[in-house]
Structures are given as structure tokens and as C-alpha cells.
């Protein structure tokens, strides 16, 4: 105590009436709101260097500090999806009883938004869950978030249907020869097929398949494949192709319509071989109907996952480019938030996040400090 008193005396001039700091509470744990602001983004960190220990990090891209809001674990090549209509988020994962071996359990883990803590799970039969480098269209909602659809790959492809209210597995639907899940605004979903078509599966209110139909070929995977990672505006999916076409698929009705494809490129862009490239290569601001595409010059066979130096912004109504944004650092994945003052969030080549104004292109901040290892997928909160 003597030393403490001496300390006080020494600083008495500057500290004057300052009391000692109070004893603090143990334990104390933060909570989050049950509905998140539209400036919050889930960064799904595949954790490529320790794949079995992936995680999802929730960040506020608008805040000056304390951007990191929380996280939740997710296993080996997992899928993630956050609900808009309820206070839940979902992780589709596979767990072995001896970490790397033993009995396999596939499940949907359910976390609440307030605590990012597990509140339930749905066990999935068949050990069929598709494992692929993190990809949004492996886990999707249907029917106003009543159903959760999960992509299976064994390598036979199918979709498992889960009832979210009942937290129960309902059915499995084969989508042979096709892949991924692109929900319509009705009770149907599309899947892209190797023969350049879209397979559309219609479900009934119990999640059972009632009809399956195939579109005509609407792209050419031999000469110019479409990325399986579209951006969506008003129920219309915009699928960029490797060489810079955009193939729209209107999923507002139960059966899709396919408006004519249009090009992202002008003649001088084509000469410099500008192309889309990266992991999450496209995103959209729905209210302003703007499509954002991550672009690189000198494109060629194999450059489609390399990332890009610019983001090009399009008005999808006029099919015209509005802006070219030059990124501060090379980009790998892009996501736009949906508020009135939207942010463009970019996973850069350092595996940090750069945050830009989606309206002015101004670089605002970056979020790093080894918050993520390989955050390949970004989900803006809705």
C-alpha cells in the first residue's frame, strides 16, 4: 500500500481529484441486436490453411472502430446463410467423431443473432453434403425463408430440403448433371447444368418435388462459361461469363425467363482483354439497380479466378457502364451493402477487407489485423 500511496502523491498535480478505477464485473459477455444494421457484413473465412476450422466473422464496415462484432465457427468447406426475417443464421457443416476420421455427421447448425451461439441443429442423412471452396449458392432459402436448401455432391448432385420452423429434414431432390441453387421468388429453384441449360425444380408445401423442367441452352460452357456466382436484382440473376457477357435469368415467376445476354465490354476493353475474375466476382445494389463486377486486364484461359484491379459498375436497366472504380489493392471478392449509402467491401489479396463508398468509389478503411485468413465469401446483412 505504501507504494500505491507514494504513486498517488507523485501524480497529484495532474490527477487531482481522480479516484482509483473501480473493480469490474466478472463474467461479462457482449450481445448483439436481434436484427442487424445494413452496414454489417458476414465474412466467411474458408481458412484454407486449416480447412477444418473455418469461421464466419461479422463486421460493421461503417464504424470508425470496433468493426469486429463477433464470429462463429464452421467446419470443413462449410456453407453459411443469414436469415432476414428471423434472428437466426445457419451453418451447413460436416463433423468427424475423431476430427479427421471416424463417424461423419452432416448437419445444419443454427445460431441466434443476439449471441451468435448455437440454439439448435438439423441432422442431415446420407453424408452427401457438397464440399467446395466456400460458395453462396450451396445454401439458400426458399418460400420466404420457410425452407433451407442445401447442395449435395457425391459426385451425384442433389438438394436437401430442410423446414426451418420445424428444424427438420424434409426431402432430397435429385438435380443430376446440374449444380447449385438459384431460388425463384416462388417455390422453385434453378440449377446450372453442364449442357448449358438451367434445370428448374418445383417443390410443394412439404418440400417434395412436384415438377422439374429444363430451359434451353442459354450460354456456351465450351467457348465462354458463365460463372456460377451471379448477382441478383429484383429477382433477376445476372450471370457474368468468363469473357465478359452477362446472361440474365428472371426468377420472379416459378418458371424462369431468359432475357438476351449483353456485354460488359466496350471495344477498347475487349482489345485490352478486360474480363471478370476473382472469387465472388459480382454483387449488386438492389435499390439503385446497379451491378458491380470485379475486372482484370490481360484476361486469358485460366485468369478467371485471379482477382482484379478494378470494379466496373453497370445500370442493369440500360445495360450501360456507369463507372470504373480503381481498387486501392488487388481484389479477390466483392460485396455491396444494401443501405441508402452503400459500401463496397472487397476481400483484397492480403486477405484483409477494404471498404469503399459504393457511390463515390472513395476508399474509407480497411479491416485486418489477421481477423481473417482467407475470407473468400462476403454476405451483406439484409
Amino acid at each position: 500500500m505504501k507504494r500505491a500511496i507514494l504513486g498517488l502523491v507523485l501524480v497529484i498535480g495532474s490527477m487531482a481529484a481522480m479516484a482509483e478505477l473501480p473493480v469490474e464485473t466478472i463474467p461479462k459477455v457482449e450481445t448483439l441486436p436481434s436484427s442487424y444494421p445494413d452496414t454489417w457484413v458476414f465474412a466467411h473465412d474458408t481458412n484454407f490453411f486449416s480447412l477444418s476450422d473455418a469461421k464466419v466473422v461479422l463486421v460493421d464496415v461503417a464504424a470508425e472502430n470496433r468493426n469486429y462484432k463477433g464470429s462463429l465457427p464452421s467446419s470443413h468447406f462449410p456453407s453459411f446463410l443469414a436469415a432476414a426475417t428471423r434472428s437466426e443464421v445457419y451453418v451447413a457443416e460436416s463433423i468427424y467423431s475423431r476430427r479427421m476420421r471416424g463417424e461423419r455427421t452432416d448437419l445444419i447448425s443454427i445460431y441466434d443473432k443476439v449471441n451468435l451461439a448455437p440454439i439448435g441443429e438439423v441432422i442431415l442423412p446420407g453424408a452427401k453434403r457438397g464440399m467446395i471452396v466456400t460458395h453462396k449458392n450451396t445454401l439458400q432459402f426458399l418460400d420466404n425463408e420457410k425452407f433451407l436448401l442445401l447442395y449435395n455432391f457425391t459426385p451425384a448432385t442433389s438438394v436437401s430440403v430442410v423446414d426451418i420452423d420445424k428444424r427438420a429434414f424434409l426431402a432430397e431432390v435429385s438435380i443430376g448433371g446440374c449444380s447449385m441453387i438459384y431460388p425463384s421468388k416462388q417455390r422453385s429453384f434453378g440449377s446450372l447444368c453442364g449442357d448449358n441449360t438451367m434445370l428448374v425444380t418445383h417443390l410443394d408445401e412439404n418440400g417434395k418435388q412436384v415438377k422439374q423442367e429444363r430451359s434451353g441452352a442459354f450460354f456456351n460452357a465450351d467457348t465462354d462459361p458463365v460463372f456460377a456466382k451471379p448477382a441478383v436484382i429484383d429477382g433477376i440473376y445476372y450471370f457474368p461469363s468468363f469473357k465478359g457477357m452477362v446472361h440474365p435469368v428472371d426468377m420472379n415467376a416459378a418458371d424462369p425467363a431468359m432475357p438476351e445476354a449483353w456485354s460488359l465490354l466496350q471495344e477498347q476493353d475487349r482489345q485490352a482483354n478486360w474480363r471478370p475474375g476473382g472469387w465472388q466476382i459480382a454483387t449488386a445494389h438492389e435499390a439503385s439497380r446497379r451491378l458491380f463486377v470485379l475486372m482484370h486486364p490481360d484476361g486469358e484461359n485460366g485468369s478467371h479466378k485471379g482477382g482484379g484491379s478494378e470494379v466496373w459498375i453497370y445500370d442493369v436497366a440500360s445495360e450501360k457502364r456507369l463507372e470504373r472504380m480503381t481498387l486501392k489493392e488487388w481484389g479477390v471478392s466483392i460485396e455491396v451493402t444494401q443501405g441508402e449509402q452503400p459500401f463496397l467491401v472487397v476481400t483484397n489479396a492480403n486477405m484483409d477487407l477494404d471498404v469503399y463508398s459504393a457511390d463515390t468509389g472513395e476508399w474509407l478503411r480497411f479491416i485486418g489485423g489477421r481477423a481473417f485468413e482467407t475470407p473468400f465469401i462476403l454476405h451483406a446483412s439484409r
Partner: protein
Amino acid sequence: MYWFDKITEKFARRVAGNTSRRHLLRKIGLTLAGGAALPLLPVARAADTGGGSGYHGVAPQTSADPDADPGDPASCDYWRYCAIDGFLCSCCGGTHNSCPPGTSMNPMTWIGTCRNPADNLNYIISYNDCCGKTSCGRCLCNNNVNDTPPYRAFSNNDINWCVGMETSTIYHCSTAIILGIATE
């Protein structure tokens, strides 16, 4: 600059508190591993983080009462962290004295004594770990003032102090909580 921060993040062996010339030299020694020129490093680091002592890509914070409790709780140099070892909860969705959402704070932990530069008092600091989620990974900080080997467990920071937690002993991040004033 990037390689420096990578090392800092990957193997931050730093001693906070009364930063002296010797501390600095040792810090530089560690960062030399990358092979770059020595004298540039502290400058580069300061420039890169906005002049603070924080981590690249982590914005500075303040405590609830910055006058009485000064410094940046998102920096390894914050006074309370004189014997911390792990990821700073301040960088992980918690604060310097609270856990991130969905983790559990272990009431049992190790204890350090750190001097608050504002009042020059020695405070007993409890480094309670937050448990139940995978490694935060952000703001790794290891300071070892008065740290003892594991045979004196309650002043050892190598132990996983998620020990004893019923729901999960998986380590996520560490806090630094005031228990009181150290008496002599």
C-alpha cells in the same frame, strides 16, 4: 510493411508497460527475421497504423474513461495487458473487460499486476479467457511481466485458461479486468 505486421501478428513477443530502449531493441530483433533494414522498422510501423501502437487493420479504441484509464485497448501496449497472452477480446467483438457474443467468460484465471500510467497505481488484473469458439486470430499479444512457469499456475499465461469450463474449453480470446488495487 506488410511482412513486418505479419510477423508482429504471427509472433508478437513484446513487453508493454514501461517501454524502454531495451524493449524496443528486442522488438526490433524479433522483426529482423524478415531480413529488411533495421532502422526503418519502427517508423514504418508507426506510419502504417496511423502513428499508434495498434495492429495493422485494427482501428484504435478508448476505454470508458480515457483520462483515468488511458491508452488503446486494441493495442498490445495498453497498460492492463502487461501479462496477457493471446488474442485481445477488444479486437474480437468483446472489449478489454468483456467477452465477444456467444463465448463464455471463465471466472477462473491468471492474475497480473500492472501500473496505470494515469494514476500511477498498481492494479490487480485478471486475464479472464473467453471460451467456446475457435481462435479469434486477431491482435495476438504476449506480455510476460511477472509471468511464472506453470508450477506457479495462477501467474502463468501459457495455460489454456478455458480450463474447467463445462460447455467448452476451446480458447477464443483474453480480457484484462480490474480486480482491485495491489497492496504491498
